[in-house]
């Protein structure tokens, strides 16, 4: 995280001249100097860095160049949108990816499996934005079932605003969530399939069969648990991908979230927003990884017990 903060800080201060960006071309030299002094840009670099961290920890990232509003407010407005989108996509990917993966592992040779696998290959090759456009074309332009942009009506729960409490809100979120989640879905599907096939070849599955256990017990009891353990970690690591591609999805669907904000920031070289996004994204990432690590220990008993000298038989 520190590395990210360093990068963000470097961005803010050394890339481009923040002053020029902020005051425009007409400001006089004196005005610029005054602003520099006010912002503390004349202080030695380490001091600035510490201040940056301090500010960031409080959530203060300064003022957006482009929109002339505190970045903090912008984030607060947009974060729920992105988080909801990412959450729904992740749930979508897991809810369909895991069962499909299991199915294609258990029924390897059926044509349904082959069909699903081919589709999954297509899923990997389809760029997110193309998929988004396609969905919009089919469902919004032709069929007019779902809105093609925006979030739909949102309800405010304190500081958070959610779109999930209304049917229309769901209608608005389905297409973006599917677009964002499809790539993850194909990854999860392939991963689950590969893992399960590996597990089904192990000795303990063979032994379970030799003990006459029912197929259901073997596949869903023994094999599944072992399959899901690595899947959890890898999915956690892929959250980064979800966050990155939410940028694209939000652009296609004009979804008012962090990603859209970021892209606009990149287009206009709005550095405070960029650095804020970076810090936030990596924060989310680190937290998710932490959760995954904890989950991993909970699920895999091999990691739980303390090492002690095993008894001689």
């Amino acid at each position, binding site marked *: 995280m520190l590395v990210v903060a360093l990068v963000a800080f470097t961005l803010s201060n050394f*890339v481009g001249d923040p002053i020029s960006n902020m005051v425009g071309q007409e400001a006089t030299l004196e005005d610029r100097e005054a602003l520099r002094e006010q912002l503390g840009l004349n202080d030695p670099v380490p001091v600035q860095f510490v201040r940056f961290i301090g500010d960031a920890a409080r959530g203060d990232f300064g003022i957006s160049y482009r929109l002339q509003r505190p970045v903090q407010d912008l984030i607060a407005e947009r974060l729920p949108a992105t988080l909801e989108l990412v959450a729904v996509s992740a749930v979508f990917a897991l809810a369909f990816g895991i069962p499909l993966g299991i199915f294609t592992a258990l029924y390897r040779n059926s044509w349904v499996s082959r069909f699903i696998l081919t589709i999954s290959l297509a899923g990997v*090759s389809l760029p997110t934005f*193309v998929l988004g*456009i396609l969905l919009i074309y089919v469902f919004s*332009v032709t069929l007019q079932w779902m809105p093609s942009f925006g979030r739909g009506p949102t309800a405010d729960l304190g500081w958070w605003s959610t779109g999930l409490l209304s049917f229309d809100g769901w209608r608005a979120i389905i297409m973006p969530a599917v677009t964002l989640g499809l790539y993850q879905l194909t990854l999860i599907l392939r991963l689950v399939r590969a893992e399960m096939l590996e597990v089904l070849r192990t000795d303990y599955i063979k032994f379970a069969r030799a003990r006459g256990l029912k197929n259901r017990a073997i596949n869903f009891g023994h094999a599944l648990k072992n399959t899901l353990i690595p899947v959890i970690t890898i999915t956690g690591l892929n959250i980064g991908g979800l966050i*990155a591609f939410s*940028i694209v999805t939000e652009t296609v669907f004009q979804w008012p979230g962090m990603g859209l904000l970021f892209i606009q920031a990149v*287009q206009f070289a709005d550095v405070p927003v960029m650095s804020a996004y970076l810090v936030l994204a990596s924060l989310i990432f680190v937290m998710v990884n932490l959760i995954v690590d904890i989950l991993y220990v909970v699920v895999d008993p091999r990691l739980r017990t303390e090492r002690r000298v095993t008894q001689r038989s």
Partner: protein
Amino acid sequence: MSEQHLPNITLGRRMGEAMVRFARSDLLFSFVRQPVIVLAFIITVVFVLAATFAPLVAPHDPFDPATLNLMDAFYPPAWTEEGNESFFLGTDNQGRDILSTIIYGSRISLIVGFAAVVFSIVLGVLVGLLSGFVGGWIDAVLMRIADIQLTIPGLLIALLVDGIARSALPSGAREEIAIYVVIFAIGISAWPQYARVARSGAMSEKVKDYVASARIIGTPSWIILLRHVLPNILGPVLVLGTIGLALAITSEATLSFLGVGVPPTTPSLGTLIRIGNDFLFSGEWWITLFPAAALVALVLAVNLLGDWLRDALNPKLR
């Protein structure tokens, strides 16, 4: 014979042998057996050839203002009622022939894609070889950097690099260097995986006896690396590179679609899709859908090739 000549002869002979082995090999066998893969290969070749010989192949030159006629704008594809035969896939809002824009667009997409992949391979392999062969703290530092970078999604890195470049460079120069910036951005987001492969290759060769004896007679390390490690890692690098190419093309398209990729004067397939998107709602679907279809076809074909290559080169599956 002096030492200088030896490496060249063996390299040449090796390549010759490799080609003979390839022709007789399982690789070719498994290739011909799968019609889908042959199709994918054909598609890829068609794209590459069309893109290379674009001026000869494209029916119109979409970027020569002299030939453009606004009266030609918004023609739907030739097979529809209002279509025009000389514009096979229709025209866009400025009267440009879609088929031609796709051909020229593929050119840009492929150039950027290839260049980015070559860049990441060169960078990655060099770093990896250095890291693996020399070891020590250089290795530790380089691999740490690679690890950190691997946890960040490539798209984000590319966006960041692009964003930094944008704000750091004066706006006049931006247009010209934009394409190099994009190549650099995509390339730098992908080098770690090649570095890993090169590093493990270097490390496993390093401990072999012939390396020690080569060192004793004074052969410089880079010749050792070149002659012995490189051929070993060629296979995996090729597989990664092919899949990486698909990824690079996709990344470039995404960046261009988002507006932070190649400049509009040299549009790639992604740019075309972005332009066309604006007209989707007013019913001129062909402006965006045909470039999109072309992009998907290309990426899919390259992906299939990469997948097949991986399975075919995998010793475990033979």
